[in-house]
């Protein structure tokens, strides 16, 4: 280790003691520096460069909304008591006075009506949680569609996926805490889904609820998960996530001056820190505005939890929508044939709740696929290189199409989670919506895949068009011989660079392994690889570009000076101008 073979002089050790700061700030800084080493931190981060782009802000929004949710949640814990002990409500919400309820519900009402600002903080907490998961989701879409998950960032993508799942867990456990009818029915559904799991499901339910559903154990248990275990795990993963961002440095969009070997952007101090710090207050301000003006989870309307009532038109929080929707979408019977069946056994048979289990499959496949996508894609494409320049989504048509298909699949499930409200608001038959969705869930993603891929390829062709012939200027000119043609404006070299500097690999056939044999797995990989790359639009090559310039020069003389100049430079370029 370097410490062992490097010797410091006595003078170097003494330097620290000899330095005399002149200002008061300097003395404080020096005090801290001599004890915890501020110098190193400032040198490392003070001018660290972060690329700037609006789409990089979603991750920031997620981080900030998490901080806001933690702070507002801490405020709520001072009043909320997750106890299931029965109490008679005597707070200031008249319609519930004298009603027996759990202490959890009573204190949630107290927070809303008898703690000044309590309702505001509850709404801030709830809206913040919705935004937290929304921001994470959009951030992940951005990372996916730009290929930011590629080497060396695969593991950070996995951390992000875990954060999303923990976010869902944090949301659901919090949603259940007030112990009213709405969230109680949410728990009831979770109980039903758990019981459907073969072999262990019934016991899982018993262990969660302390016995049979609902009992009086579950709320305090969810509370521990909600305020301690899950947020603790989220904090740790966020620390790892950000640590890896520092290690990798941020990705950047392709553009002039940006390469795989550099980072172009603003330094942390002062510009980026000011923008990011200011942005925290903007996120908080917008959440405050929403929480002050839009009601959410009016839990006094639902009444204390009782397993017998339920509201029609009840909706989960938005992120639970797909889980709810896919349950609604699944038929229990195919005509006269029940999908649920019993496996005959000597001890009386075991039931398989197919209508509940089957919907879990697409959800599980979707989440699993999300976790391992970086490796799936690298395996198919054979791409083992590091990537710090992002893909423009159009330049990775197949990935973009797969993403769009998945989003479509998700959105159909999500929409089905509100099929009853869609039916009542748009005066449609609930049954028809459900029947159509059962078709759409299979057809929709295929259509989305094909359409997206075609759109990407079309956009790439458009890029070629602009690179070779310029932008349509919208000016029609008449030549002396009576011909009409539109003036084209050639792109600047900076724009041009963005349009032409991408890779479009051709499909690579199956490769034999070390023994010289092409395995079946390798053939499968090659087939996927062909699917990935067979439809492609190549970037403009140098020769094409030169030919086009010459052509433009002859026929588009009207573009004037600019074209002429580039014409000149082509000739200059040929002679090796540097």
């Amino acid at each position, binding site marked *: 280790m370097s410490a062992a073979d490097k010797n410091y002089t006595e003078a170097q050790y003494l330097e620290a003691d000899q330095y005399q700061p002149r200002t008061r700030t300097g003395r404080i800084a020096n005090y801290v520096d001599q004890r915890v080493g501020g110098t190193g931190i400032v040198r490392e981060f003070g*001018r660290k*460069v972060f690329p700037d782009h609006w789409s990089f802000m979603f991750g920031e929004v997620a981080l900030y909304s998490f901080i806001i949710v933690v702070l507002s949640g801490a405020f709520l814990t001072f009043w909320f008591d997750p106890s*299931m002990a029965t109490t008679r409500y005597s707070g200031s919400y*008249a319609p519930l006075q004298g009603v027996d309820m759990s202490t959890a519900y009573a204190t949630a009402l107290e927070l809303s009506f008898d703690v000044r600002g309590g309702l*505001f903080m509850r709404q801030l907490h709830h809206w913040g949680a919705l935004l937290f998961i929304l921001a994470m989701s959009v951030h992940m879409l951005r990372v996916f569609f730009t290929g930011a998950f590629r080497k060396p960032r695969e593991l950070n993508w996995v951390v992000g996926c875990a954060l999303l799942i923990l976010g869902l867990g944090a949301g659901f456990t919090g949603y259940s805490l007030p112990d009213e009818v709405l969230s109680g*029915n949410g728990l*009831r559904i979770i*109980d039903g889904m758990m*019981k*459907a799991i073969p072999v262990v*499901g*019934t*016991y899982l339910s*018993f262990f969660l609820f302390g016995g049979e*559903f609902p*009992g009086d154990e579950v709320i305090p*248990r969810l509370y521990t998960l909600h305020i301690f275990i899950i947020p603790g795990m989220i904090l740790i993963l966020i620390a790892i996530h950000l640590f890896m961002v520092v*290690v990798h440095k941020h990705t950047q969009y392709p553009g*002039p001056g940006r*390469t*795989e070997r*550099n*980072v*172009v952007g*603003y330094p942390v101090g002062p*510009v980026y820190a*000011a923008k990011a710090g*200011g*942005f*925290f*207050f*903007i996120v908080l*301000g*917008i959440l*405050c505005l929403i929480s*002050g*003006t839009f009601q959410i989870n009016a839990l006094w309307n639902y009444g204390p939890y*009782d397993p017998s*009532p339920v509201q029609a038109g009840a909706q989960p929080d938005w992120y639970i929508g797909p889980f709810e929707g896919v349950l609604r979408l699944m*038929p*229990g019977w195919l005509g006269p044939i029940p999908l649920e069946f019993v496996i005959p056994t000597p001890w*009386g*048979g*075991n*039931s398989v709740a197919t209508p*509940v289990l089957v919907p879990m499959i697409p959800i599980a496949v979707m989440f699993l696929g999300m976790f391992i996508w970086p490796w799936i894609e690298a395996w198919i494409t054979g791409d083992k290189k*590091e990537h710090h320049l992002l893909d423009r989504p159009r330049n990775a048509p197949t990935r973009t199409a797969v993403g769009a298909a998945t989003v479509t699949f998700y959105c159909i499930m999500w929409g089905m989670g509100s099929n*009853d409200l869609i039916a009542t608001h748009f005066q449609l038959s609930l049954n028809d919506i*459900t029947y159509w969705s059962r078709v759409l869930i299979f057809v929709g993603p295929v259509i989305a895949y094909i359409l997206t891929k075609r759109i990407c390829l079309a956009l790439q062709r458009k890029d070629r068009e602009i*690179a070779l012939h310029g932008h349509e200027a919208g000016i029609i000119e008449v030549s002396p011989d009576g011909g009409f043609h539109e003036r084209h404006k*050639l792109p600047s*070299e900076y724009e041009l*660079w963005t349009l032409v500097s991408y890779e479009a690999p051709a499909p690579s056939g199956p490769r034999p392994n070390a023994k010289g044999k092409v395995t079946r797995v390798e053939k499968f990989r090659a087939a996927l690889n062909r699917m990935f790359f067979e439809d492609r639009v190549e*970037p403009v090559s140098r020769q*094409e570009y*030169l030919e086009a310039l010459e052509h433009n020069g002859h026929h588009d003389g009207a573009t004037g000076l*600019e*074209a002429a*100049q580039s014409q000149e*430079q082509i000739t200059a370029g040929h002679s090796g101008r540097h």
Partner: protein
Amino acid sequence: MAEHGNGESGAVVTAGEGESGTYAIDSPGLPPHRPRLSDVDEKAAKRSERQVATLFIISIIGTIVFMVGYFAIGRTSEEFGEYFDHMQWLRIQNTLLGVGSAFAMLGIGLGVVHWAKTLMPDHEIVEPRKPLRAEAERAEAAQMMGEIVEETQIKRRPLLRNTLIAAALLAPLPAVVMFRDLDRAYGEEFSPERMRHTIWDEGVRLVRDPTGTPIRASDLTVGSAMHVIPENLREISSHGERLSEKAKAVVLLMRMNPEDFEHTSPGREDWTYQGIIACSKVCTHVGCPVALYERHTHHLLCPCHQSTFDAAQEFKVVFGPAGRPLPQLPITVDDEGFLVARSDFTEPVGPTYWERGNA
């Protein structure tokens, strides 16, 4: 990497060098920096300064609005007894707190961002990426790891290694086992068998929820429906236990014309009473209360996932994800003419679970 900006020129075509040579043009480098208005015009900079300061002042006003909302309206419950006033004032207070803090935060946030965008330098900086690791360092680290492993002697002493692995595999078991008592049931109770029974039994009256008054057949008109609980539910003192029993025992009672029954299975002929029929209210899908009854079609609908059951056909599933009919509760009347259960349900109620089997 070529980073020579070429000013105004359209395209630079040099012989390829490095990676960029593969593209139609060579990298033009960073575009030249274009000064903002506030960089060149002191007046514009001054204007930005005033805008930022105004935003900060808006933030101060926002904080004041918040304080007014908090203190001027006060603890609404004490000052305003009437329900309507209370809700009204709560709404106003909530709006003032929200709008006040929104301005307080947005003023700071927008002010700082505007400051950064108009007054702080907007020169983009280029920083090289470090290779994630240097080969020499990797080799040194690998050698260190080798020495560390060697010093432990773990390779030379497989007995140590194997017993350590065995101990490490077993050691976490107590941490798993300890969670056994998450389920409070012991001994024979600790079995899914407990889900086969409810507190319904022969002669248990069907009573209204929550008043507990018993029901005569004449209380129900044809076409009506109500949800009922077993009379003995109220005897359970523990809140949690009462909820759990209610979650299984809640029943939906409806009256139809007896000739509307389209199908009666053998053995169920005497399960209804003068067109009054009872079923479990717990959906067989995932357990929501089947709360909606449509009298013309005799359909029961679960609002959670829209499973639809036909009361005229022994609660057969006619739509939605439910896999089984709702269990029917056999009923009759007792000597005093009140509706009572003939027995418990003859199958487990609620969602399907693995051990349910052929019921």
